Structure formats: C-alpha cells, structure tokens
C-alpha cells in the first residue's frame, strides 16, 4: 500500500522503538527485523513482556480472531456507516470534537467502524491498531473499497505499540483496557502516544453499571443456554442469530474482563497530570455551551464529589447497563510535561 509511506513517520519498531523503513512487502528496523505487510496490513504484533500476561493476551487474540465484532453487514457505503456511528451520539460528538487536520489513533479498533467513520474526513490521518487480523481485514476492506486513503490499519499490541510517542492529537481506546491484565499500565502506554495538549478517550466497563450483567452471567453459568432471553439483546427480533451469538460471547464468554469506576480512572488522570474534560454518560452536570443533544467532549466539564459519582454510576445500571455498561472519560494531556 503506497499510502502507508505517508504515515511511516508515525510508526516505530514495537520491539526496539526504532524508526521503521519500507522494504518491498515489509517494514524493517535498523537491525533488519522484518514485519510483513499482508493484504495492506502491517503486522507489527510482538509479545507482551511477562510470560503470564502474554498467555492472557493470546487467549484474548484467539477469541477476537473468532468473533469479529461488530460486522459490516448492510454497511455498504460511507453514508450508512456515518448514520450508524452518529446514532449512538458518542460517534457524532467525537467526530464534531476532532479537528479536521488531526492525527487520530484508535487502539483496539476491532473491525474499525469508528476508525473508518472518523476517516471519512479525508484531511485527518487515522490509524487503527488491533491484534485481530480477522477484524482488521474487515475494516481495511471497507477503507479500500471507499478509497479512504487517509485510514490505515496495523496489527499491534497495546503493551508494545508500534506507534511513536507524542504523535496523536487524539487517542481513542474504548472497550479494550478492561480485557487486558494491566489496564492502568496500558493506559500509561497509550498516554505516551498523545501529543502534549492532545486528548485521550478511554472507554471501560463500569463497576456499577455492569452489576446486573454480572448477575446474569452467574445465572447463565449455572443454567447454560436455557435462560439467555433474560438479556435484552438476546430477546431482540431485529437482530439475526449470528449477531446475537457474537454479542453473547463478547459480553458473557469473554476470557478476561475487569470493571472500573469513575473515580479510579479520574485517579489515573490525576496521577499523570491529565486534565479531565468530559464523560459519556456525564459524571456531573453539562456545560452551558451544550444545547439539546449536543456534547462538547473536548471542553472542560465539572467533576462531582465521589459520592455524586457513585450516585451517577448507580443510575447507569438502568441506562448503559443494558448496552454492556461501557463509560467513556476524556482527558487532556498537559502542554508542558510536569516533572513528577
């Protein structure tokens, strides 16, 4: 892929951190280590350093090579993708917040629907990183078909990212860290990729919102397949059986997941001098610039007290809980790195 050259300055060798060069069908580092480019996707995946963690990662990779989630059924042109992405609100707000000339990195992009959607603005540079080749292939197919030459998919590992430090204006990692053995360590790795003054968008399973799901998970563990209809999505008639299976596997059979609270992530932010910007759902009240249905993700929002956060999160059980209980916090990296 010729256009990979345009983003080569953003990449690095995942093992040594050195620059990468283009050589026929591969990327190589100074020592001559080769990373093949197969079907447009540079394969820059290297193992996680600790053996135990690498085992967990491999389990997870096998899982997502089997379950490519979500698929592109019926999404056969950019306007359909755009409508779908905007429907959730979050996609629309993110698209509105990200400037047109930004470099955007999405880590754990899966099938790349968000990556491709954000890449519909052709002046942005958008990189999607994931471990699952099966998922990346789906995303890349869409990008190639619709000539999104500014979108690039790479295979990589969060704990050994093939992305240079301080090159992303916006880094997105949603629904990923809670499947890793060390979410906070992963967060720190991701933050390194963000430019000073850039934004980090983190989406995680919420401790409170996922309580009902946790209970259902225990129930299914005991009852097997019988009572699956207890889950709202498994009852839906407008979704086909295959999609239901994927949903079920992703939510209930995932090899590894952890749950996180708002205050925990705010603590990660505080420890790294990252300024809290906004939360989806909101963790306190909105700012006056936000008229009905709008959300300014990159504008500073007030925080509530820890008690206030708990109350908000309890209410999430009945809102986002049904959709898997994912919450998103947006932070801004300080302009001048403060010495810690």
């Amino acid at each position: 892929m010729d256009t990979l050259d345009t983003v080569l300055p953003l990449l690095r060798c995942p093992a040594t951190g050195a620059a990468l060069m283009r050589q026929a069908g591969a990327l190589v580092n100074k020592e001559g280590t080769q990373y093949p480019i197969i079907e447009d996707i540079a394969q820059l995946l290297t193992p996680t350093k600790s053996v135990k963690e690498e085992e967990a990662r491999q389990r997870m990779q096998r899982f997502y090579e089997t379950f490519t989630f979500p698929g592109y059924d019926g999404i056969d042109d950019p306007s359909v993708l755009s409508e779908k992405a905007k429907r959730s609100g979050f996609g629309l707000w993110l698209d509105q917040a990200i400037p047109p000339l930004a470099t955007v990195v999405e880590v754990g992009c899966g099938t790349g629907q968000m990556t491709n959607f954000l890449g519909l603005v052709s002046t942005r540079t958008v990189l999607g990183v994931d471990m699952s080749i099966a998922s990346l292939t789906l995303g890349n197919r869409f990008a190639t078909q619709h000539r999104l030459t500014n979108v690039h998919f790479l295979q990589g590992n969060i704990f050994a990212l093939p992305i240079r430090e301080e090159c992303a204006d916006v880094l997105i990692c949603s629904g990923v860290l809670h499947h890793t053995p060390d979410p906070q360590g992963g967060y720190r790795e991701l933050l390194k990729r963000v430019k000073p003054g850039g934004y980090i968008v983190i989406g995680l399973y919420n401790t409170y919102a996922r309580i009902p799901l946790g209970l259902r998970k225990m129930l299914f563990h005991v009852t097997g397949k019988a009572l699956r209809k207890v889950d709202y999505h498994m009852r839906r008639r407008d979704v086909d059986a295959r999609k239901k299976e994927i949903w079920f596997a992703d939510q209930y059979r995932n090899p590894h997941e952890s749950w996180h609270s708002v205050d925990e992530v705010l603590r990660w932010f505080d420890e790294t001098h990252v300024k809290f910007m906004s939360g989806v759902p909101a963790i306190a009240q909105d700012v006056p610039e936000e008229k009905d249905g709008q959300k300014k993700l990159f504008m500073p929002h007030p925080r509530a007290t820890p008690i206030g956060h708990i109350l908000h999160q309890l209410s999430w059980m009945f809102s986002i809980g049904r959709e898997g209980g994912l919450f998103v916090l947006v932070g801004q990296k300080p302009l001048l790195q403060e010495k810690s």
Partner: protein
Amino acid sequence: MEKPVYILGLSFFYHDSAAVLMKDGEIVFAAQEERYTRKKHDEDIPKNAVEAALKYAGITMEDVSAVGFYEKPLLKFFDRILQTYFRVWPRGLFSYHHAMQEWMVRKLWIPHHIKKELKYNGEVFFVPHHEAHAASSFFCSGFPDATIVTVDGVGEWATATFGKGEGTDLKLEKEIHFPHSLGLLYSAVTYYLGFKVNSAEYKVMGLAPYGEPKYMDAMRKLIDVKEDGSFALNMKYFTYEYGLRMTGKKFEGLFGHPRRKPEAPLEQFHKDVARSLQDLTEEVMLKIVTHAQRVCPSQYLCLAGGVALNCVANGKILRSGLFKDIFVQPASGDAGGALGAALLIWHRIYGGRRLPRMEQVYLGDEFSQEEIEMFLKEQGLPHETLDDHALIERVSGLLEGENVIGWFQGRMEYGPRALGNRSIIADARNKENWQKVNLKIKFRESFRPFAPTVLEERVGEYFDLDRESPYMLLVADVHPDKREKIPAVTHVDGSARIQTINREQNQRYYDLIKAFAQRTGCPVIINTSFNVRGEPIVRSPQDAVNCFLHTHMDYLVLGNSLLSKETMKSTSQESQKAYLKQFTLD
C-alpha cells in the same frame, strides 16, 4: 415618520417549519428552521429562524405588527379526522390514536405556543391552507391577474384548488377534498417504489424518464379523472386512511409486484411505474389548468403547492400554449405557506400594495468576509483569500480542471433548491462528474441527474426554452446536437431541469459561469444543493466546512476564501513531520 409594518409569517407542527419577515410589503428575510437545527424537515416552532429574521432586520418581537400562521389541513379538517376515524373503525385504531394525541397536545394550542415560545403578545391570524399557497404564488408573480392552481401537497391531507387573482385580492373557486388527492397518489406510489414519503417524491420524477408508460391502465384504475380535472381516487387500493403504510395487498396485486424494499435494486418495472405515474400526473395537471382557465380566465397562470414542484409537468403546461406566461412559487410546501400567510395579511389586513415579481430567493442568513475569515482562523484551516476578480479567475479554472467545488456565497436561498449561494458546482461537460458528485459527494443513487445552471442570454443555444427559469422549476429538452456536449446534466430522455441566471439575480455566480464560458465556450455548469444525502442544505460556514470535510469535494469557496483539500492534507502531513523531527528516533 410612521412606524413600519412588520409581518411575520410562520408555519410549523406539520413538516418543514419556516419563518418569513415582511417589512412594509417587502420580503426582508425568509428561512426554514431545518437549516438551523440541522434536522431535515424539522417541524418544531421556528425559534431559530425567527431569531435570525429579527436580528437581520435589527428589530425585536415587540416591533412585529402581526403574525400569520399558515393553517395546516390537519387543523381545518379536525372534524374530518373524526369522521374518517369512525368510518374505517377499527382498522385505524393505532394510527388515529397517535394523530389524535398529537392534536390534543400540541395543535390546539398554536396561539399559546406562539406567545410563549416566541414571546409575542400581538395578534395572530390564521390563514387557510390553500389561500396561503395561492397567495405565495400570485402575489409574487407580478402578474396583474392570473388563473391560480394549487395542487397539494406531497403527503398532506388537502388536495387541489383553483381560483383567480386580481390586483391585491384573490379568490378560490373550487376545492377537491380528502381523501382524493393527487399528491397522495404520488406519495403512495413513492412509498410503493420503496422511497421515503414526504421527501423523496422528486426521486420518482427523476426515475420516470428511464421507464415506459406501461402501466397507464393500472394507474387509471387508481384514479378517475373527469374532463374538468376533478378526480377521485379508488380508495380500495389505498390504506393511508387507516394504516401507517400507504399501499396494501390490493395495490400490489394491481401492479403484480410486491413493494420494493428501501435500498433494494431498482428494476425496469419500477422505472415503468414511475413513468406511468409521471405521465398520469401531467395529464391530470393539464386537465386541471385547462378547466381552471375556462372558469377563471386569464392569460397568466400561477402554480403553487407540492405538486407544482413537479417541473416536468410545468414544462408541458408552458409548451401547451394555454398561457402567455406562468409563475411557479419556488418555495412550495410549508415554506411557501409561511410566505403566503404573511402576504395575505399584508393585503387583506393592511391593504398594502403589490410586490414586484419575485426575482430571486436569496432571503436567508448572510455571513460577511470578516466573519468567514475569523471562523477559518479559529478553526486553524489553511486557506487563501482572493479579491473578486482573482477568485472568479481561479475558481473558473478549477472548474475547467474537473474539480468539484463547494460554492458558499451571500444570503441563503429560501425553499428547497440551492440556486448558486449554497451550491456544489462542477463541469457539466464531463459525464464522469455525474457519477463522481453522486457517489462521492452526495452519497446517493446514481440514476439521479443534475440540474444545469446556464447563462440566461444563452439558454436558447442549448435548450428548447425561450425564457428565464430562475428557480429550476422548468424542464425542457436539450437540443439534440448539444446533448453530447453537456452529458452530466442531460437526462436519458434528453431533458434537463434548468436554472437560468442573469447578473441582476446573482452577480458573482453569473460572473463565475461567464468566466467558465470564456475559458471553455460552454455556458452551462452542474449545480446541486450543498448537502449530503439526508441532511439539510448548509447554512453557515461551519456547516459548509463540515460537509466539505466529510465528502470528496476538492475545493470549498467561502465568500472570497478558497480552501483546498489537497493543500489541507499536505499541510497537515508536513506539520506532523516537522513536529516529529524534533524527536528523532535512532
């Protein structure tokens, strides 16, 4: 000095809410609410449009002398809802329950809403639906007298009327009632063909030339047309009286095919049905206007209402020679209703004088060059700003170089069409441009043709048309020897939906096409509305930039500023590289 009379015309709570502000009989400002809220066919109280109108005129709500509300058929025919409800009971239980609830909660309280939401304490006049449409056409036509025909309304509950306008008054003679509606027949077929009712009727019109009128017999079973143009639908084929769907099993049986699923492939059958419907519509329209002229004679014709936007039929009426001239209100539908409401109040309540012929519809928001540049600076968007002459030279050159350009200038158009101030433009000589604009920019079905803008003085050279058509409301044939020259705007049947332009209407747009003609010899370009599928036409520089960035448009012109997609991309990459160079890797 006497205080000027400000009249505010409003329409809302059905679809396409809009506001029109008149000052002493002159239209000062007009805009649809959807452009502000970015919700297509927004039907809410047009708070934003009213606010923009007042701001433009430099007045407050207290300066407004009267508010005219364009009365919706739903209001007027409340008793009819109940009648129909009981007639078809219990089949319509669900849909009527919904309609009734809507009615009870919102529609009975119009004056209350106007007072509360718009902070207005003066008088509110209710203007009957069809009179508003008739007024919007006749009072803007400049004709001393005219036969008036309103054919409504894509999906609305009212139907057709005709009457006569003379001087500052008009009178409607005859009305054809629900459920017998040509507009609804059009909508039912639109639904049957798998398009979106109330908004995609024009797609059916665009599809028609690809088909043959093979289903005229079936069409005639659906509707019984008398010589006087009155007609009755055969209700056994329709389900919209009681259902949420428009056509049922019997309708499908008549044509021998099930309804097309939205986005399913279009087959010859669908094109033939569209063509048959179009031919029937034209036949009925011609009968109505012929009869109307007999009863209310005049050498001029004024058309209004949704079906009047059916420009193919308009072209036929013009060529029939029945009338010396015709005027079609470009802002049809509810936008026209708000305009008509204001005009009727001006003439009937204030006894005002007539307006000259409405020559242009650039009646909405405007952004100064300073505002545009401030915005571009805030957003950090690379651009160059050129003087008028250099801009025209540059952009006409870019058009010749096969670029697709977003063209944003001056005041926003009122009504459904972009006429050179919120337009996407391209070279009409290149057939690939048709596909390129359709698929890469508008993200829409590729069968839909584009409309040309042509220099008014050269229209006869390319088209079988001997007069102006400033609102893109007339269809005429492209001369056979010219069809090859402008393939991107020539429909399969050799016709085109024409916009003529002269320098008085829009100086900068005219100059641009003139400069393009000097370069290429061709005075015709593609003009399509500045939006993507499913979104309202852009209003502000922000909307324009959003649309530009989200599509494969090559250039964007905002006033005197020029933005290039390629320059933006390379600027971005260069600055990224320069930035990263600070920290070299080993």
